């Protein structure tokens, strides 16, 4: 009896203390604490997500872009995907990852230059460290030892992001055949990067370390890189596509959101 009484008293004290602080309100079995104010003001969400009209209006090349998006879509489904699937059956996953690492390691000059141009000195140093470690301990870049053992993450920067860093706007959206979605700024970025990229051919302006000697070789390397990449991401594009109610604006907006985020980082 005494025990029951004390339990009852404790329970009472407890419930009173809860009521006094007004910390927790229970309703239909769901409890909420009332410390912070409610945040259901829809206009503040409107602000967070921005004006829906702004991004979709300025698209002077829409007609062309739609056509190229369709072309790229067919190219992916009927050419790229089957080739990558076949390739993935020939070469085990570990091998394809290693090839991906090897190619990625060769992009060091692009990442290094652009980190430097954005005054990201620490990241530029880390990229240099990654290149040295992976080229040596990682046997020519096939293994990402720098990430695995030193926890040095890659800082992926390109010239499009550098231009964005200096406040240059995206400009109109442009979809390139084969290369995919881009915009005016990122297209200029691609051209800029090709001068330092070891895997592109810039003819007489070429730095000594350039691997492809002709445009054809460059295209071949690019094609192989894409096949290898696709083989590691089979089914992703098809799955992503299901989120699209209308494919072209879907890819356009996803692209522009991702680039904005990359520039911010």
């Amino acid at each position, binding site marked *: 009896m*005494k*025990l029951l009484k*004390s*339990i009852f008293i*404790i*329970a009472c004290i*407890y419930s009173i203390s809860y009521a006094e602080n007004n910390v*927790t309100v*229970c309703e239909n*079995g*769901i*409890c*909420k*604490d*009332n*410390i*912070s*104010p*409610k*945040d*259901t003001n*829809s*206009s*503040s*969400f*409107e*602000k*967070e*997500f*921005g004006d*829906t*009209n702004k*991004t*979709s209006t300025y698209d002077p090349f829409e007609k062309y872009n739609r056509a190229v998006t369709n072309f790229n879509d067919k190219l992916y489904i009927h050419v790229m995907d089957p080739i990558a699937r076949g390739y993935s059956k020939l070469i085990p*996953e570990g091998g394809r*990852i290693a090839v*991906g*690492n090897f190619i990625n390691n060769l992009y060091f000059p692009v990442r290094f230059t652009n980190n430097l141009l954005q005054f990201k000195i620490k990241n530029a140093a880390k990229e240099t460290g990654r290149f040295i470690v992976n080229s040596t301990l990682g046997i020519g870049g096939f293994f*990402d030892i720098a990430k695995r053992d030193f926890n040095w993450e890659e800082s992926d920067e390109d010239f499009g992001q550098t231009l964005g860093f200096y406040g240059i706007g995206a400009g109109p959206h442009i979809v390139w055949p084969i290369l995919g979605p881009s915009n005016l700024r990122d297209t200029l970025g691609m051209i800029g990067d090709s001068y330092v990229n070891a895997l592109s051919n810039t003819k007489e302006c070429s730095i000594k370390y350039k691997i492809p000697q002709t445009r054809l070789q460059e295209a071949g390397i690019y094609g192989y890189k894409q096949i290898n990449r696709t083989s*590691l991401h089979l*089914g*992703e594009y098809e*799955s992503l596509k*299901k*989120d*699209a*109610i*209308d494919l072209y*604006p*879907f890819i356009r*907006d*996803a692209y522009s*959101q*991702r*680039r*904005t*985020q*990359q520039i911010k980082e």
Partner: protein
Amino acid sequence: MKIKNIIRLIVLISLLGIPAFAFKQSEIESGMKKKIDKVLVILKKKEANAKKGEEIIAIMDPVFDYSLMSKITLGSKTWSSITQNQQNEFMKLFIKKLKQSYVDKLDLYHNQIVIYKGVKPYQNGRLQLQTELSGKGETYKINYNFYNNNGNWLIYDVVLDGVSIVQTYRQQFAGILKEKTFNQLLSQLKEKR
């Protein structure tokens, strides 16, 4: 006396453990971690995707504010201009689409690991739980945006590698509504599965 004290303690502890479905601010990371761990266990099961999807959605459902997500994707202007019936119809179709697209993506899971980067302040006092899905030499950033609904922190958006799901739908719907009526949008949502 001693036993009584122990009982007292037990009662106290049991009173403290108030069940809650959504998270308090301090529980966002630990709560999501528990949920995601459960999801990973389900993902590794050998079951049909549809069944896995159902189980996962049942785990995640309580922390998503689907009605707010529907409202934001449509935009408050459009939302307030349509009838209640249309709102409900839209919500039903949109949520179905969201869940379906989630289930479709289960195939893409190949034993990647989830890394928790912590809860960071986001816009307007909202919070973002940052996670990374790591595997196959590549890392994807998956961020969950939470807002405070009366001390109940709920998800209103998921951001994959910088791409907001809500924003992507929002832009698409805005684009469609420029040329078509709301009912046409609804039927387009119905068709496309």
